[in-house]
């Protein structure tokens, strides 16, 4: 089944194009050689003839007759033309009939140079005629047979070579095209397997990668990311299932108990309790959707220059009364502007979640501090509390969705606030981590990049 597929492929077209290009290129080379060879041999004949005619015209009568006779006797192959005409035009000696070319001592092409010997046919030749001082005319010439033969030979070689060359180019082209085609078919088959659900296979990448290998490598990386996301989605849905089933089960039980009793007041109480469970479940769903929204958002278009100091002050003002109500001292340290690129609303939300968390876990009489500054050229926001802190082993996991700590069980809320903050930090290319505040927790959100230039 591979052959017809190959014939339909772009590989074949590539092979054909390669063959044609090769053929055209070689034909051009041959053509050039052909033209050069004939031109060079013809021009050599011409210059020799002109030279000889010039010398011969100045010979004495005796010398020229000897020379002509000598040449006639030596010319066994009948290549040379030589003749001496009297002033009146009669042939004195030689083997050429009367030809009308100017007696200017320059070479001229004559398509049919007449022979005086009756057995010889007229042939194309180059002739030179020159007047001698006594008025007689010397004519020298050479048959172009040799040049023509050469020309024919080259032409035959050219024509003979084109066929095999075309075939060879086709074969080479087909070989390479087929090889590429095979690789692509292999990649195609692999992708088909992946699409059928086998997410463990990967595209082949050779040790010395070319462009296709680089694309394959990118596809492989993409697959890794997809697998990671799938796992994450699975984890999240497992967690959602857990976190929603619990309040749903409680709700169910309460409502059933309320209905089973005969007391209307009891039913009202049960209904109210069920509603508050439902509120919890709705809060969880909203927070989860919020996280995936932030995670799937594109960092980019909405980003503007924002001042983290101003945002800290704003969120601080919002939470200050809460601290006061709980007898927690609130301290703000954000004196100079901390410009960065980001989404102001999201940053506010992230900070609100961090402060919310800090206030929740700080006992009466404790302190929550919020600060923003530029450190080593990078924007850094710190939220610290004097609560029970986060155990070293939990510090990485605390930002994961649904990570349960002892902290979470004591306080209201979805427990997803830190995950939302982490997602927002990631979107902004900020790092969010927690350290020991001795006592308490210190949340540090710091930009990986330099602080943005202050708006002009």
């Amino acid at each position, binding site marked *: 089944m591979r052959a017809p597929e190959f014939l339909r492929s772009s590989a074949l077209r590539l092979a054909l194009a390669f063959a044609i290009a090769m053929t055209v290129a070689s034909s051009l080379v041959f053509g050039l050689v052909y033209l050069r060879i004939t031109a060079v041999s013809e021009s050599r004949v011409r210059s020799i003839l002109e030279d000889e005619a010039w010398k011969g015209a100045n010979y004495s009568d005796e010398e020229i007759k000897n020379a002509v006779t000598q040449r006639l006797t030596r010319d066994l192959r009948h290549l040379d033309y030589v003749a001496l005409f009297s002033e009146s035009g009669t042939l004195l000696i030689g083997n050429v009939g009367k030809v009308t070319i100017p007696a200017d001592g320059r070479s001229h092409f004559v398509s049919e140079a007449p022979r005086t010997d009756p057995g010889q046919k007229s042939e194309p030749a180059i002739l030179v005629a020159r007047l001698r001082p006594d008025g007689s005319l010397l004519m020298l010439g050479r048959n172009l047979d040799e040049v023509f033969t050469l020309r024919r030979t080259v032409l035959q070689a050219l024509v003979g070579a084109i066929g095999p060359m075309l075939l060879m180019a086709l074969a080479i082209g087909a070989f390479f095209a087929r090889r590429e085609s095979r690789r692509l078919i292999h990649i195609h088959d692999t992708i088909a397997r992946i699409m059928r659900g086998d997410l463990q296979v990967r595209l082949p990448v050779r040790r010395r990668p070319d462009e296709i290998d680089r694309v394959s490598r990118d596809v492989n990386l993409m697959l890794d990311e997809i697998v990671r996301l799938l796992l994450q989605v699975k984890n999240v849905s497992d967690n959602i299932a857990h976190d929603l089933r619990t309040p749903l089960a409680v709700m169910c039980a309460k409502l059933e108990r309320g209905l089973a009793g005969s007391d209307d007041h009891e039913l009202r109480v049960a209904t109210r309790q069920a*509603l508050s469970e439902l509120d919890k479940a*709705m*809060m969880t*769903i*909203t927070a989860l*959707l*919020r996280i995936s*929204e932030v995670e799937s*958002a594109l960092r980019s278009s*909405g980003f503007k220059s924002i001042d983290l100091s101003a945002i800290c002050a704003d969120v601080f*003002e*919002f*939470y200050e*009364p*809460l601290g006061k*109500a709980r007898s927690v001292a609130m301290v703000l340290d954000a004196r100079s502007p901390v410009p960065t690129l980001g*989404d102001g*609303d999201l940053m*506010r*939300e992230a900070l*609100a*979640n961090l402060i*919310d968390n800090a*206030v*929740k876990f700080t006992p009466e009489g404790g302190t929550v501090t919020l600060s923003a500054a530029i450190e080593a050229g990078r924007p850094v926001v710190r939220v610290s509390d004097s609560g029970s802190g986060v155990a070293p082993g939990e510090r990485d996991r605390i930002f994961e969705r649904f990570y349960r700590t002892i902290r979470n069980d004591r306080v*209201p*809320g*979805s427990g997803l*606030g830190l995950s939302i903050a982490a997602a927002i930090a990631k979107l902004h290319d900020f790092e969010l981590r927690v350290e020991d505040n001795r006592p308490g927790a210190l949340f540090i959100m710091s930009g990986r990049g330099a602080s943005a230039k202050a708006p002009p």
Partner: protein
Amino acid sequence: MSMTGDPLKRPSVLLIEDEKGLAEEISAELQSLGYRVQHVDSVAEGFSAARAGSSAIMVVDRMLHGSDGLSMVEALREEGVKTPVLLISALSSVDDRIRGLKAGGDDYLTKPFAMAELAARVEALLRRLDDVRTTKLRAGGLEMDLIEQTVMRDGTLIELLPREFKLLEYFLRRPGRIVTRAMLLEGVWHYRFIPETNVVDVHIGNLRRKIDIAGAPPLIINIRGAGFMLHAGA
């Protein structure tokens, strides 16, 4: 149909919603508040009902049977229909919200929502702010001077923080109407998220301590399961 108010006095709501259960609940809630509710469940019916122009407000689901409630609102706005629109949607991102408001929606509510929230927002849309150029707002013995930025209760000056002043102004502009926590977060603090802790209640508590007088009924009362209300007649 059971109505607590005079059906002719209470305006009519056009509800365009294709989820039967949700539509029933919304209708029931609004009817219990005395609104007349006309319910349709498709874009086509929505168009003709909206063009008829008999309703004072439209509640439109953004996604209807796979077709787009948003483009319907857009088309109606282009035709010159000015009826206020409350969009309800399962899409909650800021972009979606902005797109919804740009298309001609006047307010945007994300599912899941409490019925009280929906009712409060419908009412807020129906009763646009009185005169925004007003310089003095009054309720009971309380008077707010918007130019001087001062608040007096029975002739005594009350010191308020700037944000407390804004919070009180928000209530004074909506006397006798339910104001939800989300509306306050949006309107006073410009927050688009609901914090986990009920910080709004703390702010209201602080405000109450400053504006209420011992013995007199509180100006701002809690509405169970919904939010707060400034006692208009107090």
